[in-house]
């Protein structure tokens, strides 16, 4: 199929928590400009797998390749260095801080005296918000005072701002209304067009059918299979998720 070098290749990843293998010998890959859905029930291991890539967990075994080169990811900082950005299901925002402080958390703009430059960060935040969500106007309040969609905007902006090449989205639309979901869908297509590779973790089949190019389904910590979305039906995906049954390749 694709002769390009994959952006990301995760090979034979394993991770156990106290004897339970949360991820058991799983391999997935991701190409530029592609959206790969990672599907499965709660507890199937999809979030754990993706946290290995984002640096939140360290795999017991297996290798990660970024642009064909072996990568060492031991913590979130390492992942960011490879331009891997993550939007967590819980959004991972510090509720007591404002949008700009959250956007730049861990990567603050400092002036020449090493002091955090809040005004510069707010100006940058205003600029990028203008592009991604022009309705966003609340730059002064702590993000706890924002709506779910606005909080999502902050989380997404944070990932996009720092030139992400690989974006991990963990249930990006779980807490959103229809309009905001639409916004996220638009954004995903926009980012895709820019050549960014996206891992989309979801258990909403419709989301996945609409946005993804390929899907990788997990069950009980194991990979059931990876299929092109165009080659399979909704029912076949459901069978993969629920029964762990690979679709018959007859058609």
């Amino acid at each position: 199929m694709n002769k390009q070098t994959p952006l990301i290749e995760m090979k034979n990843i394993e991770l156990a928590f106290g004897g339970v293998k949360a991820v058991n010998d799983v391999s997935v890959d991701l190409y530029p400009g592609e959206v790969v859905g990672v599907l499965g029930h709660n507890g199937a291991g999809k979030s754990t797998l993706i946290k290995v890539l984002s640096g939140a967990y360290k795999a017991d075994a297996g290798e990660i390749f970024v642009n064909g080169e072996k990568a060492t990811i031991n913590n979130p900082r390492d992942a960011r260095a490879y331009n891997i950005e993550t939007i967590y299901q819980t959004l991972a925002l510090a509720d007591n801080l404002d949008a700009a402080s959250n956007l730049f958390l861990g990567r603050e703009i400092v002036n020449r005296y090493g002091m955090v430059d809040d005004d510069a960060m707010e100006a940058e935040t205003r600029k990028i918000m203008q592009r991604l969500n022009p309705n966003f106007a609340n730059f002064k309040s702590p993000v706890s005072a924002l709506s779910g969609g606005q909080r999502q905007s902050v989380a997404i902006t944070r990932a996009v701002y720092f030139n992400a090449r690989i974006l991990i989205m963990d249930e990006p639309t779980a807490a959103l209304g229809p309009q905001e979901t639409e916004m996220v869908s638009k954004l995903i297509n926009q980012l895709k067009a820019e050549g960014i590779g996206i891992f989309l973790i979801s258990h909403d089949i419709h989301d996945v059918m609409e946005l993804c190019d390929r899907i990788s389904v997990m069950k009980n910590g194991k990979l059931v299979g990876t299929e092109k979305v165009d080659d399979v039906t909704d029912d076949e995906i459901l069978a993969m998720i629920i029964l762990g049954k690979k679709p018959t390749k007859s058609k």
Partner: protein
Amino acid sequence: MKKAMRNVVGAVGIDLRLLGMIGALVLLWIVFDLSTGGRFMTPRNLFNLSVQTASVAVMSTGMVFVIVTRHIDLSVGALLGFIGMVMGTLQLNILPEYLGFGHWSIWMITAVVGLLLGTIIGAFQGWIIGYLTVPAFIVTLGGLLVWRGAAWWVTQGQTVAPLDSTFRMLGGGVEGTLGSQLSWLVGMVATIAAVVTIVLARRRKSNHGFNVKPLWAEYALGGIVTLLILGYVVIMNAYPLPKGAAKRYAEAQGIEYPADGLFISHGIAIPVIILLVVAIVMTVVAQKTRFGRYVFATGGNPDAAELSGINTRLLTVKVFALMGALTAIAAVIASARLGAVGNDLGVLDELRVIAAAVIGGTALSGGIGTIYGAIIGAVIMQSLQSGMAMVGVDAPLQSIVVGVVLVLAVFIDIVYRRRAGV
């Protein structure tokens, strides 16, 4: 009317909670002044109040960081006692042997050793909390017992006195003040610095094209700040040295002491200057450094901080090391003020410090707190205590009142936060 009020307050950019605290403080002072027949709001009492507050206030700024990161430090009172005891022994029994009694460098060496000791002990407790993941409550409860016991051990329970005379100036006794001219100088510099800060902030904001406050609001804010600073200087200068000290001063300056007395001003006390410097540094650290930003981010959402690449364990060590250093500064002030170190130095201070931070709006759930709030909280606590003592309230009743006020203040804060939705 209420709305107009709120608009004015919003325009000046002072938050309502700060206004509430200042209102409570002013009310407290008026009530005490009336019930003592005007003895509370005298230069003399306000001078004493500011000196008495300094030690607890210095520690409360550090406690803000500790509580903001969802921890607690119960050991500060005992640690203050231990550091005080070590510093006392050092300057009385050890250093004079090598340097000679009353050597000019004794106070400096003592203070630096105290500061190092506090930082190291704080960092050690922070390491147990951050890396060994023992809850801060337990670690510092253990610390309370350990350091109180260690303080006793340093001198087998003996009181160390009298402390080095230069060292004693740091406690703000009769000699430990700036006098009238220096106080004016400090007041001027502080005023200019405040005004320049306001102007620069406005310029920066308008450079980025943000909305700025109306000009009258900036003038009002600058006016209030100037009035507060210079008013404080006037009051401190209005408190004369007692006769004996004035006589000594006159002799030292070669002035003849007139028969009807001489008016020599106290001026601002040195511990208050120390507190001022600590307050400014801590405010800058909280608002303008990455470290400060990470303290608040970690308090708001530890997981988010961790996922953003912040090393929250190391951060815990730093926060407690800072608390230890501030405890050492407070130990210098407290021991210098008394001129002696006894076994009871700093007893129950941990509770005063925590109460000051909490009354000042620091939320125990983490993520929220301000340095100025904690300092105002410390002033409120101290006003309450010394005011009740002046009125002649029985000691047990004093404790009861302070306890009730603490719970009430936090309750009001919770209600305010729920209403304001922050």
